[in-house]
């Protein structure tokens, strides 16, 4: 009885929240855009700004993995591999060939996407855990290549002095907040891309594969092709993020892309709410800010972090923002009219 009451309460809370957001959509969007744009002028230290940029980076990574895991239902534990490929390719392009950031980033993303395709081809016959283990192996292989291919990647010493992006003759740095704004632009673009993708025919195909693969096949959907496509898009987004990360941090080495990164990304996706876009932002904000805020716990902060995830799995398995809409269904006009008509007819027959 009590449990039911509680459930009703929490549902109402979501409904209240949703109708509130629905009502004040424009002002909320405006205020949050203003806050995001004005953040650099609020006098935060470099350190804090850097955390904000890291949150942005992880939002992008989570959005990328979300396409694969949240919508298509394929769990990848090797996204650090795509991240590394994007970062290394872009850095090498700009270090050795002097390519500017845009070209380098797209180059990195394309190579990551190609690797995504190559990984997907032999693995798409695998399901669930088996696929995850193969992707885990992929992440490790990439790391090993980076360590051992000295000539190109400079081995464990890593790549130094990666140039910062410059746009319109202005060098973007952390100090002039150029990197922050570049991050905002990238996040906005990737969010837009994901939203458009999910609402399109391709997005529906992805979701149908997650929901029920057999039924999806019977609809005439080429499931293998769409799974490969999900891998490619996901790797592309991750690759771009890698390029941005490299140019922000200025120095990369194989150990920047360990298995921990892959688990962190997937934790964000699960924590925020699989298959939602809003969840990725909240998830990365909390999980990235958490270790920084709890620095006083030092050695124990990852224990707390693990505990939070365990509790999460127990009490909110769908993720922080992974709820379904509680708003009343808006019936299309046509349906409303036909329903009204039916009601009238019923009344008439009753009167007769």
């Amino acid at each position, binding site marked *: 009885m009590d449990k039911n009451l509680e459930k009703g309460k929490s549902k109402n809370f979501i409904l209240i929240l949703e109708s509130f957001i629905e009502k004040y959509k424009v002002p909320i969007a405006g205020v949050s855009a203003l806050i995001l744009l004005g953040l650099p002028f609020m006098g935060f230290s470099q350190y804090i700004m850097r955390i904000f940029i890291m949150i942005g980076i992880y939002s992008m990574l989570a959005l990328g993995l979300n396409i694969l895991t949240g919508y298509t239902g394929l769990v990848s534990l090797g996204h650090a591999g795509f991240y590394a490929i994007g970062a290394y390719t872009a850095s090498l392009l700009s270090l050795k060939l002097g390519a500017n950031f845009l070209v380098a980033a797209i180059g990195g993303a394309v190579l990551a996407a190609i690797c995504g395709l190559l990984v997907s081809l032999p693995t798409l016959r695998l399901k669930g855990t088996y696929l995850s283990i193969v992707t885990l192996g992929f992440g490790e292989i990439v790391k090993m290549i980076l360590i051992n291919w000295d000539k190109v990647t400079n081995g464990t010493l890593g790549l130094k002095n990666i140039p910062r992006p410059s746009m319109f003759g202005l060098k973007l740095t952390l100090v002039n907040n150029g990197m922050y704004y570049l991050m905002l632009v990238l996040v906005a673009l990737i969010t837009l891309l994901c939203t458009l993708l999910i609402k399109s*025919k391709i997005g*529906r*195909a992805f*979701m*149908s594969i997650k*929901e*029920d693969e*057999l*039924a*999806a*096949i*019977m*609809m*005439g*959907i*080429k499931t293998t092709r769409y799974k490969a496509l999900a891998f490619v898009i996901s790797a592309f987004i991750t690759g771009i993020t890698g390029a941005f990360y490299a140019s922000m941090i200025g120095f990369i080495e194989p150990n920047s892309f360990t298995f921990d990164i892959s688990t962190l990304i997937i934790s964000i996706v699960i924590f925020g709410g699989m*298959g939602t876009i809003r969840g990725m932002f909240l998830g990365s904000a909390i999980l990235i800010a958490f270790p920084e805020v709890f620095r006083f716990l030092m050695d124990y902060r990852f224990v707390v972090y693990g505990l939070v995830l365990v509790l999460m799995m127990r009490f909110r398995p769908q993720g922080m923002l992974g709820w*379904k809409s509680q708003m009343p*269904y*808006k*019936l*299309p006009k046509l*349906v409303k009219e*036909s*329903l009204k008509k039916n009601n009238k007819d019923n009344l008439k027959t009753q009167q007769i």
Partner: protein
Amino acid sequence: MLKISNLNTFYGHIHALKGISMEIKKGEVVSLIGSNGAGKSSTLGSIAGLVRTQSGNVTFMDKDITNMSPHNIVKLGISLSPEGREVFPALTVQENLRLGAYTKKDKVKMSESFTRVYDLFPRLKERIKQTAGTLSGGEQQMLAIGRALMSEPQLLMLDEPSLGLAPNLVLMIFELIESINKQGTTILLIEQNANMALSVSHRAYVLETGNISMTGNAKELANDPRVKKAYLGIG
């Protein structure tokens, strides 16, 4: 329209279909009845391209479709509504139906299919924006059939449409099957509920452990003492 000759299908070492042959003519309702494990679903799977067949032929409108990939078979005009009404629970009714028309590119034709399905199932029209998982069992079955109809199939294959439904809903589903057939769609029906299946179909095949044991006019089969005993529980 559809012709199967000497079809053999294996799952590993298990010989599921032992050389079955059958034919479906345009405009017919043909039912395939049999007990659990007789090979009913394997037959549908072999036609739809879900299961690879070892030998034998499946021809559809004079075209060999044996072991073709499923999406090409859907494009040719064969549509399967899978067993246990596998709708996409987290997607809305509208999205489910749109996925059904996945192979169709023509928007005008797609809206025509929508009106056709909504005319057949007014209940779905009322629930356009509801997620499929929140529908009742009968509604989900309607959605599964409606979704299969969205690709404007020549041949509609229904795998156990009455599974787990209340008797009055079963009646309704079978009435719908008759009206879909009257609109010109040929139907291949798989059922455990042999009585109902035989009452709506023109012809029937009886499957027993991978072999076709009996075939003929549905009414005659319904009166056959062997069928009565084995599948109708009479006698």
